């Protein structure tokens, strides 16, 4: 384990950005945080979570896939992919780090999504342990330890220092580049911080949220539950929960005619949108209740069924704080699964 004084945080960022583009959480000037490219003048914001999750780095909100040139009856297909460059992301919380694993199982399973894979290979994740979780946090429900955030390098920030511990080969390689500005240290401070955080975790209001009622094989039990209608009754059908979610991975592929060609791009899509499953012949999910059910069934039953029981939620709490009508996965889980506390 190595450490660096918080006074030298900028020199650490400067050192990393010499060899690769570095993104750090910074203010979005509207009360939130956004990952921002580190340059002189960009100030690190010690925030719990960014509004948009870091999945954007690997699975961008929109990306151009290919281009077509049309001439008469002929078409030219242009592969416009560019080999991406190495980049690092600093300050990713344990929940978001876990979300990469969830996305990996989708995009890196056969057939591999090479757009995603390339960026994943080039990205180095420097995580950051939580010290002040919010009331909306429930990552422990999904077995995530926010004091051991993993990624390529795990990091802990105390009052005075930033502690760094490489986890993967990529992390080690990056550590060697910053070795000269960090100092070796023992982990006593980190252990003390972990204890303190764990104590706080045990006081969080959502700490007892249970996943017992969900998981592989629960489709029949849950699908026809009358509670879906009640839970979804005020759902606006917007995409807020989906777009702030670090694990939502649905996308759309669309064409844009530029006048001189056609760009085929991919963008995030939401199963909450009314035309998501609309076909020429009809729509299998006609009501918001069905669309609402799909989103939560996917996270809590379908995804685990296909991925060894792993839930497709990391408890980051973004949907809890952003949903316009405050309906969220916690309320769904408590309603369908029965509340332990009740």
């Amino acid at each position, binding site marked *: 384990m190595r450490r660096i004084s918080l006074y030298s945080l900028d020199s650490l960022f400067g050192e990393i950005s010499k060899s690769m583009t570095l993104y750090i959480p910074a203010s979005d000037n*509207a009360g939130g945080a956004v990952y921002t490219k580190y340059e002189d003048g960009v100030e690190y914001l010690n925030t719990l979570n960014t509004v948009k999750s870091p999945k954007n780095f690997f699975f961008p*909100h929109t990306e151009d896939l290919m281009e077509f040139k049309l001439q008469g009856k002929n078409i030219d297909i242009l592969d416009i992919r560019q080999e991406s460059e190495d980049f690092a992301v600093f300050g990713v919380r344990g929940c978001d780090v876990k979300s990469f694993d969830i996305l990996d199982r989708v995009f890196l399973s056969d057939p591999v999504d090479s757009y995603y894979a390339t960026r994943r290979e080039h990205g180095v994740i420097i995580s950051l342990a939580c010290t*002040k979780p919010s*009331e909306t946090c429930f990552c422990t429900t999904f077995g995530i330890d926010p004091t051991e955030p993993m990624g390529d390098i795990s990091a802990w920030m105390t009052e005075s220092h930033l502690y760094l511990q490489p986890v993967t080969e990529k992390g080690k390689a990056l550590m060697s580049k910053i070795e000269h500005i960090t100092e070796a240290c023992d982990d006593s401070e980190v252990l003390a911080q972990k204890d303190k955080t764990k104590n706080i975790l045990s006081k*969080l209001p959502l700490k007892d949220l249970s996943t017992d009622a969900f998981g592989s094989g629960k489709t029949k039990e849950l699908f026809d539950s009358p509670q879906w209608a009640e839970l979804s009754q005020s759902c606006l059908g*917007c*995409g*807020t929960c989906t777009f702030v979610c670090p694990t939502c991975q649905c996308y759309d592929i*669309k064409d844009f005619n530029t006048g001189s060609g056609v760009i085929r791009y991919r963008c995030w899509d939401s199963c909450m949108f009314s035309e998501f499953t609309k076909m020429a012949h009809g729509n299998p999910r006609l009501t918001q209740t069905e669309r609402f059910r799909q989103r939560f069934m996917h996270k809590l039953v379908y995804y685990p069924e296909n991925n060894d029981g792993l839930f497709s939620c990391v408890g980051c709490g973004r949907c809890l704080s952003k949903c316009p*009508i405050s309906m969220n996965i916690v309320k769904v889980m408590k309603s369908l699964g029965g509340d332990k506390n009740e």
Partner: protein
Amino acid sequence: MQKITRDQIVSKAVSLLQDGTVSAVLGWRQGEFCYDVTPSVFNTAEDIEANFVWNDFCGANFSKYLVSKTKNIDGKLLVFLKPCDTYSFNQLLTEHRFNRESVYVVGIPCEGMVDISKVKAVSGEGIVCAESKGAGLSVTTIYDENPKEIPYAEVLSERCLNCKSKKHVAYDELLGDEGEVIDSARFDEVEKLESMTSEERFAFWQGELSRCIRCNACRDVCPACTCEKCVFDNPNSGAESKAPTNSFEEQMFHVIRAFHVAGRCTDCGECSRVCPQNIPLHLLNRKFIKDINSFYGDYQAGAEVGMRAPLVDYDLGDLEACDVFERRDSE
């Protein structure tokens, strides 16, 4: 700080339900925390007594829900409307979006609603309790057991700080006292932008709109946006890009969204409340309202049922488009 209490509302709801005046109640349901209330239909007195909430976080405007919730209803739906919600209510009635006979409106006074993100900016994360105490909120967090008292002026949402009216323009019954239309400072921010240079305004809006994630929450919550099929969802419109692909798409979406509700927007402020990226969308709507007031005379959408909206009306002597800027510059 709300002047009427939860008990007053609950007993009203229960009595109207029990005497058969209404068959269901649209209200706010208790959430996980003290602030995350969800709009919900209540069907039984027990449910109302156990889960109905009324506090400083009941900001949601119920008017739009009436369109969907009264479609297949037997009897009447009881809805509690705050003054600003009643404007949307009238506007929707003007546009024949639901049947007035299926709704029983109880007007409730509102002293302004709290924006939880403003609370968090002061108190920090980990809110356990936020209750009204005197002229502010008393907030306890897991990190600080001693309640912190935050004056309302610091945490009220923008739309409430600039409240345009405490008067109910529609109701069947009123709880508490009727208020007055307020001469608010809601156009100050618009004027500030107008007085900037074109470059400054461009930079300002680029900064704001670039945060847009096209979740469509502003559209979906808007009581004036009740088209069965939105132009932005229609693949044949050529505008269904679905994503904020670049700055043009962001500008396009927000200009058109605001334009489509121009003259019908009551300035309820729901768009800005729901925006996950805190884009001040109300500044676009208010610009239209301000312009309409200044070009065609004062007009408040929803003030009465049946008014002709400014954009489906005209006057022979209307201002010419080329004179728009002269008019404003001389103001």
